[in-house]
């Protein structure tokens, strides 16, 4: 089961694959630990010795700049040795199976895998089959989960809003294909947000989306009412070619966040986006760069949150003790 797989016998984090099965106290522990790391980037010496001598391999089967870079920075700031592999263009394209790739790297005395893969369940699969001493951090698998992104979003929300219990959060855009949205919804529900509202046309919502614990709106003007936190999702270009949407311009007209639309939400609402942004498609530049936007804060918080997760997953190996 997902929850057992992620925790060791003492209930501590071993792998970080999904928010599912993790309770509020553990999520809060991640946020608190991240808090303690948050100042490190501004210090003269940006390093903690917690993972000294540990080897972390970033396995990216799918391209990513931001996520990979922040994971690399997080690992180096914890003094670990880091190796980043872009597998999308190497081993598996030669026909090597996922399992063989993992086995090969295992034999190089790795302590942790950070995995991004375009297939849902890939990180679970690796965690199930890798050597028992190795921790696996999911850096995004298919359309399933992106738990570190969700936690850095929670961290950012907590920084500004302090408490989750009164918050109404809107997630807008391509929920269907979004691993970020799935993890955010789980995290917000676990942390006790008052309401999570997904706003999208039916073509971009998964079947029975309400079973995830959200309310649903197909109209941005109505959906933004009383909202404290606005999370915009990236719209991939291929959604137009697969007939999920007629055009970028029509999407922007209906679901794009403009200054005018932003006024419907609460006056102190914050605007978030996991990036990369499509300016003029899901969000207007004036909003993305405006005073209510915390998009760049999210990016810098990504390092502290990933440091927290990595050090917690290595706890049993002596980190944080």
């Amino acid at each position, binding site marked *: *089961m*997902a929850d057992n797989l992620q925790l060791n016998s003492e209930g501590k984090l071993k792998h970080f694959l999904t928010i*599912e099965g993790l309770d509020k106290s553990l999520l809060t522990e991640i946020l608190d630990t991240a808090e303690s790391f948050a100042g490190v980037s501004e210090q003269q010496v940006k390093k903690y010795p917690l993972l000294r001598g540990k080897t972390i391999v970033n396995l990216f089967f799918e391209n990513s700049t931001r996520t990979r870079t922040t994971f690399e920075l997080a690992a180096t700031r914890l003094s670990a040795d880091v190796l980043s592999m872009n597998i999308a263009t190497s081993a598996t394209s030669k026909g090597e*199976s*996922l*399992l063989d790739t993992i086995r090969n790297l295992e034999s190089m005395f790795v302590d942790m895998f950070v995995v991004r*893969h375009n*297939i*849902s*369940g*890939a990180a*679970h*699969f690796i965690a199930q*089959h890798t050597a028992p001493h190795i921790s696996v951090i999911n850096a995004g*698998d*298919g*359309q*399933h*989960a992106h738990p570190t992104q969700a936690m850095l979003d929670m961290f950012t929300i907590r920084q500004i809003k302090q408490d989750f219990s009164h918050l109404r959060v809107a997630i807008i855009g391509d929920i269907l294909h979004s*691993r970020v949205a*799935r993890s955010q919804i789980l995290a917000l529900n676990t942390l006790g947000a008052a309401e999570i509202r997904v706003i999208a046309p039916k073509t971009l919502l*998964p*079947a*029975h*989306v309400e*079973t*995830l614990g959200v309310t649903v709106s197909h109209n941005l003007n109505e959906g933004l009412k009383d909202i404290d936190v606005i999370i915009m999702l990236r719209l991939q270009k291929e959604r137009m070619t697969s007939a999920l949407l007629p055009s970028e311009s029509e999407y922007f007209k209906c679901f794009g966040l403009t200054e005018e639309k932003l006024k419907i939400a609460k006056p102190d609402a914050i605007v978030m986006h996991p990036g990369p942004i499509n300016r003029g498609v899901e969000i207007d530049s004036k909003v993305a760069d405006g005073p209510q936007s915390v998009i760049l804060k999210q990016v810098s918080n990504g390092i502290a949150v990933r440091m927290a997760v990595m050090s917690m997953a290595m706890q049993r190996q002596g980190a944080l003790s």
Partner: protein
Amino acid sequence: MSRIQISQGRIIDPANKIDHVGSVYIADGKIVSVLNEPDGFRPDRVIDARNQIICPGFIDLSTRLREPGQSRKATFASETVAAASAGVTTLCLQPDTVPVIDTPAVAELVKDLAEKAGYAQIHPIAALSQKLEGNELSNMLSLKQAGCIAVGNANQPVKNLLILRRAMEYAASHDLLLMFRPNDYWLGHKGCAHEGVFATRYGLPSIPEAAETIALAQCLELAELTGCRVHFGQLSGKRSVIRIHQAKKYGLDVSADVAMHQLHLTENDIAPFDSAYHVLPPLRTEEDKEYLRQGLAGGTINSICSDHQPHDLDAKLGAFPETEPGMSTLETLLPLMLTLVAQRAITLTQGIAALTEKPAQILRLRNGALTPGFAADVCVFDPELTWQVNQDNWKSQGVNTPFWGQTLKGRVTHTLQGGRIIHELAQEAGYGK
């Protein structure tokens, strides 16, 4: 040939409306008599069936034995032994072998392989179209003459309805049964899980129920247009049951089956990303399962198939969407049928009929009954015997079953095919000694 008396078991033969304790008498490979001892019958062998059930051998409408072409997964040898140990004496082989069963040569190869393996009676299903691509018709008449029992589309959707229409007209001209697994190409494209709560939570490419029901509705229309006899296989959804019910009421000559696992498992049972549960059609909801059970009990669904699909370990070793669909199911067929009876979804007679009399009717075989003169295909099972699904008890080369490690109730003790004992549990497990 030898004379056998299967003695003092509870004989359940739905086709002949028998449910009585007594003996079955076999000589020269055929059933000679049931209950009444023929004059001067001197058996060479008496099988003691006390406290056991004697019924016709099971007939399975959908299996894959992986030969020719994929013997790394399974072979006729391994799978027909598994079939025999599960009481299955006749099985239909889906045409998606490598190469596809679309020429008489492949059909004959299959018959040869079956004969060499020497256990179950194997009936190949011919591909409806060449290479199952849905573009050109296969040589259906030649395939029929080479021993194919029906034509079918295996798991391949037929995209072009005109081709399907022509194929059905042609099949009807030669009095061939169409065994159709309804699945719309576009709606089901690349999906690996039911479009429901599970797929939504885990972000899996999904298949709506409508992918099945739309293709089913189209095929029903064409059945009326063409007069082709159609059997719908491996139904998974509530609305499929409703459609079939309406079609039968309306008077169409159609029948339907359901895979045994669909009567037991739903999307709620899938452990996150456990590829053992990756099947097509996908496991659907509790409501679908209830409709399928009621459809079976009420006769809308005629029969149960195993939809046996053994795999090698590598095929199931990967992230869920990347693994191959299918379960190895022959050996869990009987215990799962008995579970349906224990749960009062169907009666024991209905369960046996769904595995014997009904599939024989669909295939128009002189089989599936203990009628004197019929080939002595007989299954003897102990409904109370429990066994664990593990390496010691498993015959199929495919260990891809979600029931692995579980203890199930009900086990076949003897299987006879054409009067020959092809499985005897006592010999291997010390049973009954």
